[in-house]
């Protein structure tokens, strides 16, 4: 019997699926009609169909995006994706984040950016629009196939975001979805993973996906160049798009680094995690491609190299998609997506584009023109070319080590990732970065074609010797542990100074034409900051009491600190003053003090509140807190804590009940406090206790004095109501004292109390780690300078058209 379900809004799902079908079909139509129109340039009709299809495709994708937002914000839990990612009490600012928390939504986000970029190119309506959008269209068809969710025979194509909850494979067999009113029984959606309820989750994925999307455009230009046989003309219009891709992907990467540093407990901003690497590698090849494009433009050569590099960048984005979404990374990464069983399809997507690009390149490579003469060593193009090769080595090294899980799968090997991940990557990437930085200086001071030896050495010598002196001084000041670190120190200082002097002397400090120089300074600042912050980071929470097991097992980075205790850490004194619960978070208040010699006291400098997010579903997540100064950052992380159980404190946490008889003025000592019974008075506030005329309520006043002489008052109360004794227990939470006023013995002139104390070893404590990162601000300053420089370059290219 067919079940009639109540309260479902099925119309949106139907609409969504129609839009998906339309978006997919129009992408294909756009591709084929552009293809035909390129083959028959005189046939205007096909071009018109193609342009219209692309617009309709884009509108569909944008409406799909809006519809998904509408369903998520309206909490339409009949849709599995909505139930999975949204929830009733989710703050509004995270509703967007729900869209891209899952694979399906992030595919839509990716497709959305392709549409925006595509429409921009369509609007330019020049000779490149048709072939470039043709490539964009076919890529869009592939992406949309990932969210179609249709079956061809037994083969499932894509995972559909509009699948109904009751029809989703994980749910369909559950008994409750057979009930007509199942929707009313769903109390709440599962909601956004609390770990991701963070403003970074709102801004980082859109930026990163814009970066991914923007790598498509240079690739599309390169492919368009081959298809239309305009092997050289594509460089000029493609250049600003390549710059934009470098900018947006770079910003996405840096935002990811900032997220990791601020909110995740990596204890750094770059962990060489496979997912980070997978997005870094396309950026490196893209930068290499960008620099070869400058050779293309100035010397009319090396066109094949830039076509290959830009194609590689896009294919590496697809590879990174494959790595993060297919589930192949498994244990080796913390932030890959869930496996949706799309591995086959993702692999097909990747291989299809490798085959398409490789075929086109191999077919056309012999026909690509270019000046064939050798580049003299003293020419800018020689060093750009060399720099490109070194970037390639860097990309190969990162790719190889990141791909170990893939290699295992393909060759059936059993390799594990490198044991010391950072050391492994740094051993290659530090020398490579040094070479790149030095080449930046050489290339910028050399002219294209052939330069004069004397002129070159004369112009670069000032920066060289100045940098040498500065880096020797810095080297003596900081003292590094390995030779490559000194090399990187010199190289980054050299790159900063040489580019700065070039900016002042040669470019006369004109910002408009100085995009490259400024970007290079930014990159060098990031390298210098990373070097100092990483190499000279100081774990100030070092637990000196423990036995050191040698450098293989750094065993003393965490320290235990009890509530109220003060420990010396680095140049600070640190006190843990307690925990407090706010919503789902438990904050630990940690005060940092400095010793004040003039007044010989400790004065508070700042307070940090790292927290643990209580997360029933995913496990508790600790988030560090960092204090930023110009010359260093102080990172504080609670690695372990006994969390308060809330109000229902167990009786066994306290010492056994003890009855004591005291007279006014008596003193009693507990293990940590002195209790002085000072006086007795009758309660004023009779009404609120609901006392009748003959009833009585008395308060006994105690002074609770701690070891420092600080005192607090406690007033346990005894109520005599209708001739029965009622006691109200008083408790001082921080001191851990409970007093119960039991009786008054008028004859002996004594009062009877029950006094309990919290067992000493149950005192609140945390295990914390504090790390001082020197000159971390250089990394972020450098990031802004790099982004600024790239924006200047793009503006300059756009206006020079």
């Amino acid at each position: 019997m067919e079940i009639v379900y109540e309260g479902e809004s099925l119309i949106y799902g139907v609409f969504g699926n129609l839009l998906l079908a339309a978006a997919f079909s129009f992408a294909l139509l756009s591709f084929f009609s552009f293809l035909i129109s390129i083959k028959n340039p005189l046939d205007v009709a096909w071009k018109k169909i193609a342009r219209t299809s692309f617009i309709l495709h884009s509108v569909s994708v944008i409406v799909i995006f809006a519809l998904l937002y509408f369903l998520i914000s309206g909490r339409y839990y009949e849709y599995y994706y909505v139930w999975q990612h949204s929830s009733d009490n989710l703050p509004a600012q995270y509703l967007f984040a729900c869209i891209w928390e899952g694979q399906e939504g992030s595919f839509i986000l990716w497709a959305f950016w392709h549409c925006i970029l595509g429409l921009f190119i369509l609007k330019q309506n020049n000779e490149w629009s048709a072939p470039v959008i043709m490539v964009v269209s076919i890529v869009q068809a592939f992406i949309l196939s990932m969210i179609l969710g249709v079956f061809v025979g037994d083969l499932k194509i894509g995972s559909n975001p509009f699948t109904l909850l009751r029809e989703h494979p994980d749910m369909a067999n559950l008994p409750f979805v057979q009930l007509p009113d199942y929707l009313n029984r769903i109390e709440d959606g599962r909601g956004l993973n609390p770990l991701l309820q963070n403003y970074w989750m709102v801004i980082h994925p859109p930026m990163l996906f814009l970066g991914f999307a923007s790598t498509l455009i240079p690739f599309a230009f390169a492919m368009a160049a081959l298809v239309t046989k305009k092997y050289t003309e594509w460089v000029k219009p493609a250049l600003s798009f390549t710059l934009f891709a470098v900018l947006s992907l770079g910003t996405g990467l840096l935002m990811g680094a900032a997220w990791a540093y601020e909110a995740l407990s990596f204890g750094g901003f770059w962990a060489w995690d496979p997912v980070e690497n997978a997005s870094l590698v396309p950026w490196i090849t893209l930068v290499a491609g960008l620099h070869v494009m400058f050779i293309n433009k100035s010397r009319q050569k090396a066109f094949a190299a830039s076509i290959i590099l830009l194609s590689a960048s896009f294919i590496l984005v697809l590879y990174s998609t494959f790595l993060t979404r297919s589930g192949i990374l498994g244990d080796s990464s913390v932030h890959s997506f869930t496996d949706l069983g799309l591995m086959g399809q993702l692999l097909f997507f990747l291989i299809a584009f490798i085959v398409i690009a490789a075929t086109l390149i191999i077919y056309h490579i012999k026909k690509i023109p270019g000046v064939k003469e050798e580049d003299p060593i003293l020419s800018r193009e020689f060093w750009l070319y060399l720099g490109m090769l070194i970037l390639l080595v860097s990309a190969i090294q990162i790719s190889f080590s990141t791909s170990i899980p893939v290699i295992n799968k393909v060759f059936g090997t059993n390799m594990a990732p490198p044991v010391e991940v950072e050391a492994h990557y740094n051993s290659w990437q530090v020398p490579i970065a040094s070479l790149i930085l030095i080449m930046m200086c050489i290339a910028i001071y050399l002219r294209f074609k052939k330069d004069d030896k004397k002129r070159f050495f004369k112009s670069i010598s000032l920066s060289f010797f100045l940098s040498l002196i500065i880096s020797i001084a810095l080297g003596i000041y900081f003292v590094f542990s390995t030779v490559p670190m000194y090399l990187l120190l010199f190289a980054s200082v050299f790159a900063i100074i040489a580019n700065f002097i070039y900016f002042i002397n040669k470019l006369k400090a004109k910002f408009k034409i100085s995009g490259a120089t400024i970007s290079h300074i930014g990159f060098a600042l990031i390298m210098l900051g990373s070097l100092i912050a990483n190499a000279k980071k100081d774990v100030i929470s070092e637990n000196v009491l423990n036995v050191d097991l040698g450098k293989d097992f750094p065993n003393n980075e965490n320290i235990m600190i009890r509530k109220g205790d003060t420990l010396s850490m680095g140049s600070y004194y640190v006190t843990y003053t307690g925990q407090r619960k706010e919503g789902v978070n438990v904050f630990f208040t940690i005060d940092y003090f400095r010793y004040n010699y003039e007044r010989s006291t400790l004065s508070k400098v700042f307070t940090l509140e790292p927290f643990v997010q209580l997360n029933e579903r995913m496990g508790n997540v600790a988030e560090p807190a960092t204090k930023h100064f110009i010359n260093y950052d102080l990172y504080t992380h609670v690695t372990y804590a006994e969390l308060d159980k809330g109000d229902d404190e167990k009786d066994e946490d306290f010492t056994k009940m003890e009855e004591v008889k005291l007279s006014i003025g008596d003193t009693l000592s507990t293990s940590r406090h002195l209790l002085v019974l000072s006086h007795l008075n009758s309660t004023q506030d009779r009404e609120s206790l609901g006392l009748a005329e003959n009833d009585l309520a008395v308060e006994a006043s105690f002074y609770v004095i701690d070891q420092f002489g600080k005192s607090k008052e406690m007033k346990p109360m005894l109520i005599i109501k209708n001739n029965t004794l009622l006691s109200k227990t008083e408790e001082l939470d921080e001191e851990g004292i409970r007093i119960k006023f039991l009786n008054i013995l008028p004859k002996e002139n004594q009062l009877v109390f029950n006094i309990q104390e919290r067992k000493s070893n149950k005192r609140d404590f945390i295990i914390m780690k504090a790390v001082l990162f020197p000159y971390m601000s250089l990394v972020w300053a450098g990031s802004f300078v790099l982004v600024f420089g790239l924006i200047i370059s793009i503006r300059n290219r756009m206006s020079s058209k």
Partner: protein
Amino acid sequence: MKKTHIIALIVVAVAFAIILSSLSNTSTYANFSTSAKNPGKTYHVVGKLNKDRDMIYAPEVNANLFTFFMIDNEGKESKVVYNNSKPQDFERAEQIVIVGKMVEDEFIASEILMKCPSKYNGNEQDQNNLSYSNESQ
């Protein structure tokens, strides 16, 4: 021979060196018996926490010492010593990967990776956590 050819050769050589060195840098997944046969060599061992035996973490004594017993995928058990604080939510881990070496009878771990019920992606099989009222009518 052209300069570019020489440079290209050098690049190929360096790339080759990188791959060789990376291969020698990787450790291998192994079990406790292999690890015990090669003391001093670093391995990744995959297994599960033995919940029947005591996990010891006494921060009052040493905040950087945590010991537990793990059963590897072949069913062999070993004591594991981790010179660091106890990872948050350790008990919840479905699977543990420990990186380190065997020293005498103990596995000294330098790193612990936990596979939690999908910490970073929200698609675990927690049907029992499904929030709907279950009383039938």
